[in-house]
């Protein structure tokens, strides 16, 4: 009888925390990224659907984006600790989407940087994002609380503990998207302005602004590009692929307005191979068309 009880206890204990199996991927000596699954939020993936990245500097660690829950944030912290003993002192939230900032709460005594727009949106809508995520991923998100950024990003250069980073203030995926360029390693942290081989998410997007932004990123002399979703890329062609996708969305919607299509007629159309090859194409494309079509029709 005692044995049985013990077993039950250990099972329930095990079931209490979701194991994200975080394995940071090394890009250079001191730069890593953590690859998130190319999936939508689910109970099976615990919300592990976006990439995060970190840079180990002389005395501290800079973390770029924190995932979609406190649980993820805590496990990320542990995974970083396995690599370095230096404290995580700085976090940058690239934009206001919940899969990129809800892990903030796991970190204490940190400066969390974001733009004013991102900070305000997190403050105003944070609770709403959490209730949505809890619905979608269940227990992995139960303990999550909002921790809004406490430091404003304003300058073109950020010097953290003597480590220099270039900050690019862009938009298109949301109204405010931050890209971090590390000139020393030539790594471009593009966050959700780039989706590598994964269909682009557009709930707050402006397609034209986004295309312009990607054109700008093409002028940067990077070696590695860390996308917000999908694998890191060593090739500039990922930018052209994303531009192709956004142009396809734009022309498809414009054509649908002209032809008087209903939403489902757009979804059932034959789509070019280039976009169909993206992971999650069907679900993301459906979301994009449903959200964007009314705007195109009312133009």
């Amino acid at each position: 009888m005692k044995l049985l009880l013990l077993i039950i206890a250990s099972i329930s204990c095990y079931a209490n925390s979701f194991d994200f199996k975080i394995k940071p991927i090394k890009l250079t000596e001191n730069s890593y990224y953590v690859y998130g699954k190319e999936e939508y939020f689910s109970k099976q993936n615990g919300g592990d659907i976006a990439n995060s990245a970190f840079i180990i500097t002389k005395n501290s660690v800079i973390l770029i984006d924190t995932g979609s829950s406190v649980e993820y944030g805590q496990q990320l912290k542990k995974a970083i600790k396995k690599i370095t003993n230096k404290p995580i002192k700085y976090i940058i939230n690239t934009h206001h989407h919940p899969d990129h900032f809800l892990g903030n709460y796991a970190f204490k005594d940190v400066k969390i940087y974001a733009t004013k727009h991102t900070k305000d949106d997190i403050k105003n809508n944070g609770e709403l994002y959490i209730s949505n995520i809890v619905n979608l991923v269940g227990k992995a998100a139960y303990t999550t609380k909002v921790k809004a950024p406490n430091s404003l990003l304003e300058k073109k250069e950020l010097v953290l503990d003597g480590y220099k980073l270039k900050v690019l203030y862009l938009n298109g995926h949301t109204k405010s998207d931050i890209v971090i360029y590390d000139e020393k390693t030539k790594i471009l942290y593009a966050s959700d302005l780039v989706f590598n081989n994964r269909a682009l998410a557009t709930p707050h997007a402006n397609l034209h602004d986004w295309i312009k932004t990607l054109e700008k990123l093409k002028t940067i002399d990077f070696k590695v590009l860390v996308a917000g979703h999908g694998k890191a890329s060593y090739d500039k062609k990922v930018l052209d692929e994303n531009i192709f996708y956004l142009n396809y969305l734009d022309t498809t919607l414009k054509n649908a307005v002209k032809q008087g299509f209903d939403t489902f007629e757009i979804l059932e159309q034959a789509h070019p191979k280039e976009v169909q090859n993206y992971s999650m194409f069907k679900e993301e494309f459906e979301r994009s068309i449903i959200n964007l079509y009314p705007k195109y029709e009312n133009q």
Partner: protein
Amino acid sequence: MRLLLFFISTFLLSSSLFAKNPIFSPTFDDLIKQTIGSEKYIFDDKNIQIKVPNFADNPVQVPIYVNASKIKDAQKMILFADLNPIPRIIDMQTTKILPVISINIKVAQETPLRALVLDSKGIWHIGSKNIRSNGGGCDVSSQASTNSDFAKFLGKTKGKVFKKKDKNRIKASIFHPMETGLIFGNVEFYINTIKIQNDKELLSTIKTSSAISENPRFIFEIKDKINFLDNDGNDFELEL
């Protein structure tokens, strides 16, 4: 042998007449009574095509498409969503227009969508489809009414006729908050009647509810002129 055949044929007939509700819901029986009283109905997914998204990620804008033109001489078409606080969506006369509709609706949670089509023999055909969603679409204030330019745009209509193979398609939209009145401090305010007429006669009167998304966009399959009337007695007209 004859007996056997007879037996099989009655069995088929009765099984189609009493086809089970393809999607169970606790409110269906009450809703069907409220809507059609004790009139006869059958479940008929074969002849009623319903399209909904794979997942309704945005609960205030869920596109739906219903096409029941396989049912000849359809008299009326009614749509409702079983688990919405305002189940009734639309009620349209379809003797002079096709039983076809495309609109966006709001959903409060995952819910079956039903299309009830009355045929010329007085039997209701019911099509069903489940809308998967996390919901939350009925108790949020419309974005339109929080827009400061609200008064300027209210009632602004837009429309166009598209010639399709064997029919004409009317696309019409109107700027309107379609307020449900379900949140404190908001009065319900929505388009409740649409009339479609040509030069000579009224083709269809369509009753609509606040379960339809704000700034509604409609697709009907017919031509000519279209009128919107809201529950405040405002009359908006659109000529095509």
